[in-house]
C-alpha cells in the first residue's frame, strides 16, 4: 500500500538559534518496515522524529508521508496517519484520567461516542492496561505510563508509528513486554533509541545518524554488528552481540 510510505528527500533543518540539526537527510521507508534510528546524543534523532508529523517543518527539502507532501495545509491529515510516542510519557498524558487521555485523539477525529469507547478499550487491552482506565496519570508507575502513552497513540489507529526512546525509564520486565508489543504491530515503525538490543530485536533496518546526516543505512543485523562503525558514532555493540 503506497500510503504507508515515509520519504525524506534532502531534508535540512536549522533551529531558530542557528543550530543546524539536519543536513540533507535522505531515506525512504516502505510499508510495514521497522526502522531503528541510532546515534550519539545531539545527532538529530529527535529532530528527525519531530519532522515525521509536522511539528517541525524542514527548512529545505521535502518530507512525504504516504502520497502527501508535508506542508502547513496537509499537516493535520498527516498527524492522523503518523502516531508519535514521546520519550517522557508525562508530556504525553495530559488528561485527568487514563480513559479520557486515550479517548482524546479519537474524539478529536470526530468519532461517535460508542466507537470511541470501543477504541479506547481495544487500545488499552492491547497494552494490558484496561484496569488502569479510571486512574489519574500521576498515580501510575513509569512502566504503566509508557503503556498508556502507547495506547493513546494506538487508539488513533495510525498507519505509521514513530517512537522516541520508548524503553527509557522502564524496568527490564516492562521493557521486555514493550518489545513483545512492538513486534506484534504490523505498522511501519520508526524507533529512535540508545537501546541497541531493542532495535536489534524489533527492527529489520537501522539508520545511524551523525551530526544531522545519515551516516549509515542498512540491515540492522549488519550495522549493529559493525563495531568500528558503532564506536565511531559514540555507540557500542549491543550487549547480546558482545563476547566476553
Amino acid at each position, binding site marked *: 500500500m503506497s500510503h504507508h510510505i515515509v520519504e525524506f528527500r534532502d531534508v535540512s533543518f536549522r533551529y531558530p538559534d542557528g543550530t543546524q540539526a539536519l543536513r540533507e537527510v535522505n531515506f525512504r521507508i516502505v510499508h510495514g518496515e521497522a526502522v531503528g534510528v541510532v546515534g550519539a546524543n545531539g545527532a538529530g534523532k529527535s529532530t528527525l522524529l519531530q519532522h515525521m508529523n509536522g511539528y517541525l517543518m524542514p527548512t529545505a527539502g521535502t518530507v512525504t508521508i504516504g502520497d502527501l507532501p508535508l506542508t502547513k495545509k496537509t499537516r493535520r491529515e498527516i498527524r492522523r496517519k503518523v502516531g508519535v510516542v514521546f520519550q517522557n510519557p508525562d508530556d504525553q498524558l*495530559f488528561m485527568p484520567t487514563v480513559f479520557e487521555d486515550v479517548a482524546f485523539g479519537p474524539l478529536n477525529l470526530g468519532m461517535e461516542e460508542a466507537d470511541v469507547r470501543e477504541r479506547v478499550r481495544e487500545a488499552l487491552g492491547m497494552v494490558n492496561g484496561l484496569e488502569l482506565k479510571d486512574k489519574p496519570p500521576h498515580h501510575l508507575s513509569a512502566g504503566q505510563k509508557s503503556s498508556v502513552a502507547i495506547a493513546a497513540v494506538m487508539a488513533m489507529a495510525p498507519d505509521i508509528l514513530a517512537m522516541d526512546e520508548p524503553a527509557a525509564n522502564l524496568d527490564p520486565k516492562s521493557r521486555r513486554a514493550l518489545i513483545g508489543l512492538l513486534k506484534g504491530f504490523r505498522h511501519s515503525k520508526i524507533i529512535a533509541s540508545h537501546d541497541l538490543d531493542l532495535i536489534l530485536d524489533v527492527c529489520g533496518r537501522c539508520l545511524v545518524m551523525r551530526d544531522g546526516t545519515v551516516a549509515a543505512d542498512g540491515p540492522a543485523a549488519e550495522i549493529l554488528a559493525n563495531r568500528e562503525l558503532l564506536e565511531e558514532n559514540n555507540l557500542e555493540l549491543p550487549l547480546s552481540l558482545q563476547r566476553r
Partner: protein
Amino acid sequence: MTFDERYFAIGRLDRLSYGDTCVHRLDPRAKVLGAMLFLFTVVSFPKYEVVSLVPFFLFPALLTAVGEIPPLFILKKVLIVSPFAVFIGVFNPFLDTGTAAVVAGISISAGWLSFVSILLKFALTVSAALLLIATTSFPGVCHALRRLGFPALFISQLLFLYRYLFVLMEEAMRIVRAREMRSFGGRGAGMRVFARLIGTLFIRTVDRAERIYYAMLSRGFQGDIPELRRSRLAAADVVFLAATAAFLVVFRYFRVADWIGRLAQELIL
C-alpha cells in the same frame, strides 16, 4: 512540614475522591449545584448572625459521615487556611464596640458577634468546598462546571492545573533535594540560590509546556478539549438536590436553632 510531606498531603485529598459511597456516586453536577446553594445561603446571613449559622454544620457533618471522609483531615485543612479569616475579622471587636447582647451579666459587643460570624461562615464554606472535592474529585468538578455552562477555555486551564500540579511539584522536589544534598552547613541555602532555583523551574516548565502542546497537536488538538458525555441526572441526584434546597430554605428562614434549644429544654425538664 517538609516539602515531601506537604506533597503527599495534597495527594491525600485527591485519593479520597476514589471512594465509592453513595455521596461519591451522585452526579458531579448535582453536588456542585448543591455546594453552590449552600455557599450562597451561608453567605447571605447578615453580619451579626451567629446562632442561626450553627445548624448548618449538620451538612458537612452528614457528608463526612456518609461519604466516609475522615473529619479530622478536613478540620486540619480548614485550620491551615483559617489565618485569612482571622485577619479579616480580628479588628472587628475593637472597631465595633456597641453592646449587642448581655449574657450572664457580661455585655458582648457587636464586633465580637461579627467576628464569630465571619469565622463560622468561613469554616462552613471552606469545609463545604473541601468536601465537594473529596467526594467528587477535581476533574469531576471541572466537567460539571463545564456542563453547567462555564467557558471551555477556563475549564481546560483548571484541568491542566490539576494534571500538572503533581508533575511540577515533583520537579520542584527534585531540585530542592539536589540543592539540599550539596549545600553543606547552610551554604547555598540563601535567597540568591533560591531565586535561581525558581528561574530553573520556570524554564523547565516552559519547555515542558511546549512538549505537551506538541503532544496535543499530534493527537489532533484543535483548540477545544473534547469530552465524553456521561449519564444524565438520575433520580437520586434530583432527590439529593431537592432535599438540599429544602433544608437550606428551612435553615435560612426559620429559627431552627431556637427549636433545637426548646426541644432540648423540654427533654431535660
